[in-house]
């Protein structure tokens, strides 16, 4: 079958499936704003786990990580996967669990609203909303670009990039607007299953192909014969001790500070559900990261000689080389699924924050939902416009975003775990951390230097985080204002 036809069929089936699941979720949902924004705070283990995992794993893991592993080998696994397998679940306990409880108690439906109510300070909510938005929009733009480029490549240029990007946004917007959080969570189950299942299967198929039919043993032998360095860890750059330490901090703390992740933790039905998710996370990460990294390593054997960013094409090259057309269509759907499972959560969360954090919550519960839907459209249009007119600076900003979220974590954590912590402390922490973070970025070489050493070999994120901790303590003790005590700042 012509690859374009098989891809078109698979794409249509995928769109029908996710929109259908979204519709079914809508029929199960009520009409209140709590239902729309937080699925009635009733997500159980399976759906919430897939929603969190699908949101957490962007197309970067499927495309960018193999591209990086093509050059750096197994070190890409070593520096990322282990520490997030521990760090992410611990942040779910440290921040996610008390955030869920306090949000329920205070009736908050967005992360910024939660902290604004906790501190009884609208300023805290607005500042948090501002940084959440600044760091999330560029992220969404890069995701759309990735999906659009994939569609253009697969259709051999017959679908222009702008149409591909617009189509992805429209589909995500449709099912998100239909059923809110519940629809996005349910579709994430499908999307997560697609990309996780594909990666595991592709890993074994590619190993067999590279290994000349001898499976993993043959593939590993081929890698060793090609370049034994790919089986170890480099010593320079991101792998030097200070940079490695900074990156470990960044990658383990950043995920819980994504507003679209934190809001999903707030939608859990119980602490028991969150515990179950923490137990499952390491297994799921191994299932995704081992294939993602090894596809890049195997790719270095199959397609030697790619330079720089050319290696970002290694995922699609391996898919095209080793899978029959009907199955290779699944590979591109996997990328699309990973993009959309994050994008829908971002549209919903930013829309809900505009609706509830910038405007005041409506007296009419349905009014909030209508505004959330309208703002979802506004966010989607803004992302599209930024993508088309924003230029390269948007993509530079996206690399800043990932570490940038970490600057918010001292305030997010202390706001839930330190009763004395007050609004002045939160504002000093957030603004101070970001000021130092951007100064460190400047020292490291500018906006595109989030992964380059700043001072004493440490990455900018480390300095931003330390400034956030110091700012929190100083701001709190230098202010006469008292923090909330007791239930409002529930402890461990």
């Amino acid at each position: 079958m012509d690859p374009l036809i098989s891809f078109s069929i698979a794409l249509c089936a995928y769109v029908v499936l996710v929109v259908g699941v979204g519709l079914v979720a809508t029929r199960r949902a009520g009409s209140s704003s709590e239902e729309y924004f937080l699925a009635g705070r009733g997500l159980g283990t399976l759906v919430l786990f897939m929603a969190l995992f699908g949101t957490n794993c962007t197309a970067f893991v499927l495309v960018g990580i193999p591209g990086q592993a093509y050059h750096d080998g197994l070190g890409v696994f070593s520096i990322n996967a282990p520490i997030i397998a521990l760090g992410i679940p611990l942040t779910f306990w440290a921040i996610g669990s008390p955030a869920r409880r306090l949000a329920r108690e205070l009736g908050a439906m967005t992360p910024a609203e939660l902290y604004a109510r906790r501190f009884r300070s609208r300023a805290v909510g607005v500042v948090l909303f501002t940084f959440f938005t600044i760091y999330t929009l560029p992220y969404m733009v890069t995701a759309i670009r990735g999906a659009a480029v994939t569609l253009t490549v697969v259709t051999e240029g017959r679908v222009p990039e702008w149409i591909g990007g617009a189509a992805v946004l429209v589909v995500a917007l449709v099912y998100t607007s239909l059923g809110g959080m519940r629809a996005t969570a349910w579709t994430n189950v499908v999307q997560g299953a697609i990309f996780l299942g594909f990666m595991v299967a592709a890993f074994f198929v590619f190993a067999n192909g590279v290994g000349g039919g001898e499976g993993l043993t043959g593939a590993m032998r081929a890698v060793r014969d090609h370049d034994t360095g790919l089986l170890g860890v480099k010593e320079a750059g991101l792998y030097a001790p200070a940079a490695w330490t900074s990156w470990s901090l960044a990658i383990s703390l950043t995920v819980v500070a994504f507003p679209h992740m934190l809001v999903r933790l707030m939608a859990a039905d119980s602490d028991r559900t969150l515990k179950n998710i923490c137990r499952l996370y390491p297994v799921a990460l191994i299932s995704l990261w081992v294939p993602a990294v090894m596809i890049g390593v195997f790719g270095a054997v199959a397609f030697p000689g790619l330079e720089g960013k050319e290696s970002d094409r290694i995922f699609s090259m391996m898919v095209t080389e080793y899978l029959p057309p009907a199955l290779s269509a699944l590979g591109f759907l996997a990328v699309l699924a990973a993009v959309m499972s994050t994008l829908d959560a971002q549209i919903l969360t930013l829309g809900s924050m505009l609706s509830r954090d910038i405007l005041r919550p409506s007296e009419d519960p349905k009014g909030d939902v209508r505004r959330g839907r309208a703002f979802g459209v506004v966010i989607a249009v803004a992302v599209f416009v930024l993508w088309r007119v924003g230029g390269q600076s948007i993509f530079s900003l996206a690399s800043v975003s990932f570490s940038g979220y970490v600057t918010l974590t001292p305030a997010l954590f202390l706001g839930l775990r330190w009763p004395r912590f007050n609004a002045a402390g939160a504002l000093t922490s957030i603004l101070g951390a970001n000021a130092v973070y951007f100064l460190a970025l400047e020292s490291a070489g500018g906006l595109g230097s989030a992964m380059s050493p700043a001072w004493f070999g440490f990455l900018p994120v480390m300095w931003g985080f330390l400034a956030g901790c110091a700012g929190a303590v100083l701001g709190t003790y230098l202010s006469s204002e008292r923090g909330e005590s007791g239930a409002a700042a529930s402890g461990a």
Partner: protein
Amino acid sequence: MSSRRNNTIAWIGALALLALHLDFWRDRGTAMVLDWLPQELAWRLGWMLLAGLYLVWFCRAVWVEED
């Protein structure tokens, strides 16, 4: 076991895992285990197994459900 003792063990466990992750003292060789598993990958998977067991224990002994 008292919660204070569990908290102490949790801190020690987390710090020990962190020290094993920041393993610049280790010889990060490229040898194979069983002829198909790179030593580096085996070490990291072993670490993740330990971290997984730690999390199972942590959820049971340290994380207090407050619903």
